[in-house]
Structure formats: C-alpha cells, structure tokens
C-alpha cells in the first residue's frame, strides 16, 4: 500500500487562455495534514480544484489511493470518499443548516438517518451547527458558515478532506476553535490537505508542507523543518513564521 494517499505528477491546468499550473508535483501522505502554502496567485486553489475535477488537468496525472483519477468527473471523485470545502465555503444559503448537512450525508435520505454519534461529535466541535440547526444557512455569520462548511465535509467518514483557506476572514478566537477541530479530525485518521495563508494556523497543524509559486511546487518537506528555518521561510514566502 502506498504511503501517499494523493499524488500529483507534472500537472498542468489551463483556464481558458491562461496557463495556471506548470507541472505541479505534490504528495499527500496518508493520515497526515499537508499544508499548501504560497502567495496569492501561486496556484493553490487551482491545484485543489484540479484534484476535484472542477478544472481538468491538461497534462500530468492525479493519483488517489493508487488509482488514476485524472479524467474523472467531480461526482466520481467525490464518490471516492473525498470531501471538499471550497474557498467560498459552498454553503447553500437558502437551505437550513440541517439540509446542508443532509446533502453531504450521501447515505441518508432523511435527517434522522444521519449518524447520531457522529453528529454529536460534530456538535461538540462546532456548537453553532447544533444551535442553528433549523435556521437558513445564509443567515449565519462568516465564522459560523465556515464551521458549517467543515462540519458538512465530515458528516460521513471520508478518506481525504480538502479545505481551501479555512481561516480566511475568521476572528482569531474562532481560528483557535477551527484548529482544535482539525486536530481532532487528524487524530481520527483522516488525511487532510489544506490551503492556508495563516501562518499561525499552518504552524500548529501541519505535518508536511508544500510551497507553491508561479504554478509549481517549489518546496516540499516537513512543516517542522520549515518552521525552524527562517532563511528558508524568507526565501519561499517572504516572511518568517
């Protein structure tokens, strides 16, 4: 069995006339939390969307659990037990919190068919989800929507959780709550791939890290090593952690 749950090899992606990814090589080790760092416009979101089949790789291979998924459609990819939280959170504003959760629970036809034990665990991580269970999701605050987005991604067990900037726009106190949630998720054995700009967030959670620039991965290694090497941080990210 491969150690890497997800591998991208030489992936190129075009969006219309624009060539965004220029041969991305990325490995996401099984059971770890991998962070994808980089400046704005480096290609992080495009990489995640390419993995999910929302944009097609024009060249290269995406392999998940030993299976080439490069040409798969988005529903096929999601069907392989991959959960995705996009940058805009993808909350269905007109649906209630309960309905948002039910949609993600593919096995359940009705709310009372969702796994109670798992829901209780999710509620303990994100009390707002329980509090506003029957409220329209569009009425939640930004932080609560982000909690719902992550909660929705974990409503059923998944092998890989892909999250695009979970801390974006959140108050520092809520970010701590989110960090706790990801730490618990990681402890449950889920492999996680996070795009993150918040260095505090990255430092506390990351096992491995890949830094992107100009549509390529320019550094890959352990988060610990990057956190300890200020010179490397300066050269890769233009800042010290």
């Amino acid at each position, binding site marked *: 069995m491969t150690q890497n749950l997800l591998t991208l090899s030489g992936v190129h992606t075009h969006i219309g006339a624009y060539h965004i990814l220029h041969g991305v090589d990325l490995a996401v080790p099984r059971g770890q939390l991998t962070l994808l760092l980089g400046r704005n416009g480096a290609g992080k979101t495009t990489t995640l969307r390419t993995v*999910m089949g*929302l944009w097609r790789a024009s060249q290269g291979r995406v392999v998940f659990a030993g299976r080439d998924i490069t040409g798969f*459609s*988005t*529903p096929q990819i*999601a*069907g392989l037990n991959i959960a*995705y939280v*996009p940058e805009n959170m*993808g909350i*269905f*504003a*007109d*649906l*209630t919190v*309960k*309905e948002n*959760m*039910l*949609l*993600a629970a*593919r096995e359940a*036809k*009705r*709310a*009372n068919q*969702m796994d*109670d034990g798992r*829901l*209780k665990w999710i*509620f*303990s991580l*994100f*009390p*707002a989800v*329980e*509090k*506003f*269970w*029957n*409220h*329209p999701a*569009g*009425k*939640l*605050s930004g*932080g*609560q929507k982000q*909690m719902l987005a992550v909660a929705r991604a974990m409503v059923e067990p998944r092998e890989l959780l892909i999250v695009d900037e979970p801390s974006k726009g959140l*108050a520092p*106190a*809520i*970010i*701590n*709550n989110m960090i*706790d949630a990801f730490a618990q998720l990681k402890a449950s054995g889920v492999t996680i791939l996070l795009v993150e700009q918040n260095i505090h967030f990255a430092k506390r959670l990351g096992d491995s890290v890949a830094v992107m620039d100009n549509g390529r991965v320019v550094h890959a290694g352990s988060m610990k090593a990057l956190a300890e090497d200020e010179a490397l941080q300066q050269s890769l990210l233009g800042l010290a952690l």
Partner: protein
Amino acid sequence: MNADQLSQDTNIPSAGSAATAGVKALTMKRLEFDWQPLLLVPMLALLVLPFIGSGSTWLTLTVAGLAMGMIIFIIASGLTLVFGLMDVLNFGHGVFIALGAFVATSVLGVMADWTGSQELWRNVVAVLPAMLVAMAVAGAVGLAFERFIVRPVYGQHLKQILITMGGMIIGEELIKVIWGPQQIPLALPEGMRGSLLVGEAAIEKYRLVAVVVGLAVFAVLAWTLNRTKIGLLIRAGVQDREMVESLGYRIRRLFVGVFVVGSALAGLGGVMWGLYQQNVIPQMGAQVNVLIFIVIIIGGLGSTGGALIGALLVGLMANYTGFLAPKLALFSNIALMVAVLLWRPQGVFPVANR
C-alpha cells in the same frame, strides 16, 4: 437523540469556546420566511375592486384570473427550474404546450362517448388519460430535446436562445405535419361546461377544475421540493451546482430529470390551456411563451414559489385589464413585470447565489 429533535434545543451549555462567541453574536428567529410577495395577489385583487364596481363581476374575473394563473404556473414551474438548475434559457418550452394540447385532441377524439356524457366521472375518466398521454409524449420529446438541442449549448446563452427557438419552430411545423395547420376545436367535456352561481357571480365549472388541478400540481411540487432528497438536491443545485457535484451528485442526470418533468408539466398545461381556450393551434406555444417568461422573471429565476406568485398575478392582471381596458391587456403584464422588478430587481423570491 435523532437529528430532527436536535433542532428543538436552542439552550446549549456554554462551550466557553470561540464558537460560542460567534453563536451569541447572532440572534435570529427560527426559519424566516418572506411573506411580503404573498400579499401581492390579494392586494392586486382588492385594488381593482373599486374600478370594476360590481362585486359579482369582480368575483367572476378573479376566479377566471386564478384559473388562468394556475394553468400558467403548471407550464412555468418546469421552465424556472430548468433555468435555475443549469442556467438554460429554453425558449422552446412552448412547443411542449402545443404538443400536449394536440395530443389531447387526439385522445379525447377517440373518447367522444365519454366526453359527451353528462356524468362528471365519465368526463374525468376521459380527460385523465388525455392528460397522462400528453404528459408522457411531451416528456419523451423533452428528453430528446434536451439531448440533441440543449446539451450542445450548455453555458452559451445566446446559442441557447437561438437554437431553442429554432427547435420550437421545427416542433410547430412537425405538429402541422401530423395534425394539420388549421385550428382544431377542443371542446370541454359536457360535465365541465356551464357555470355555477355564487350569489350573482357566474363561476365557470372548468375554471374551478383548473384551480384544483393547479393546486394539486403545486402541492406535489412543493412536497417533492421540500420533503424529499431529490427536491433538496434540486434546490441546492439551483443555488450552486458546482458544490452539489463536489458533494458527489451527478447534476447532469438531475437536470435531465427536471427537464423531462418540466416538459411533461408543460404538456399538462397545454391540455389545460387548450380546454380553457376550447381550441388549439400550432402557434399556441409561442403565444403562451411570452406570458411564462414574464411569470418566471417576476417570480425570480429558479424559484417555484415565485413562479406561483408571478403566474397568479399575470392571470389576474390579464383578466382585470381584459375587462377594464382590453387594449392594454398585453402591456399590463409587461407593466406589472416592470413594477415588480423596480421593487425587487431579482424577482419576488430571488434565488441565492444567482
């Protein structure tokens, strides 16, 4: 504790966490529903009452308007979902209306003994298969229409308008080939003719039938959309189809299903409209097309509830102006649409994320 019961509990012990701060920051009522658009229909009806003068005439016109509105709703409900789900502007929707009506002339033609009966149950036995066959034929043609005409132009609005209008023209010509170019009478079954007297107001029986059928269609649609997982997927897909796909659902299949059901409902609406007008012509779909686009724009593209409000407003407005100022009949509906859009530019029930 099951998930439904969880909703009842809003007294969660303080977690002492940051999330709790976020929770406290937001105080809101349980499910908030926007009731204002629902008031438009009674407001319009009451507004014209002084101009009409006679209460019995007003009642007759109001029931006629509601009946017409219900038929338009049956036709428009599928179209608004088709647009909402896949951003498809189907200007060919009218062809399914005409197709349903012409199929009904054939089915009812062979059941003349039943439609000619004075007994209402025999009339219903005749009309019901006409509706079902019309829906089946319109649905089947809708399946082919989606596959060969709509699918190649996903995401290209201008091409959608052109090719679906072309599809409707071809459909009209094929109807002429099969049934002939002339107007065909579609008489009401005996038991549905005539009027009931409510005080001094004469209420045509068929208009009551149309209201009942319209309400039944609305009830089934509302139940499906609000109480089933398929309905949940449709409502979610209208808001953000990419996210629905990211959750593992094949939205294209869902869309094909909605397109077929929408076509079948247009076929049903065609039968109802044909019986309402008591004749059918191949161009009837194009005539109704204008009204249904006004309806779905008033309602908010993608909103079924909005389509109902829009259809009732259009039906009432057409009947009131037909009585008060016949020359303004078509203009009045466009003026209604403009007035609604000045109030709510996205329609009475705007769909989120659109």
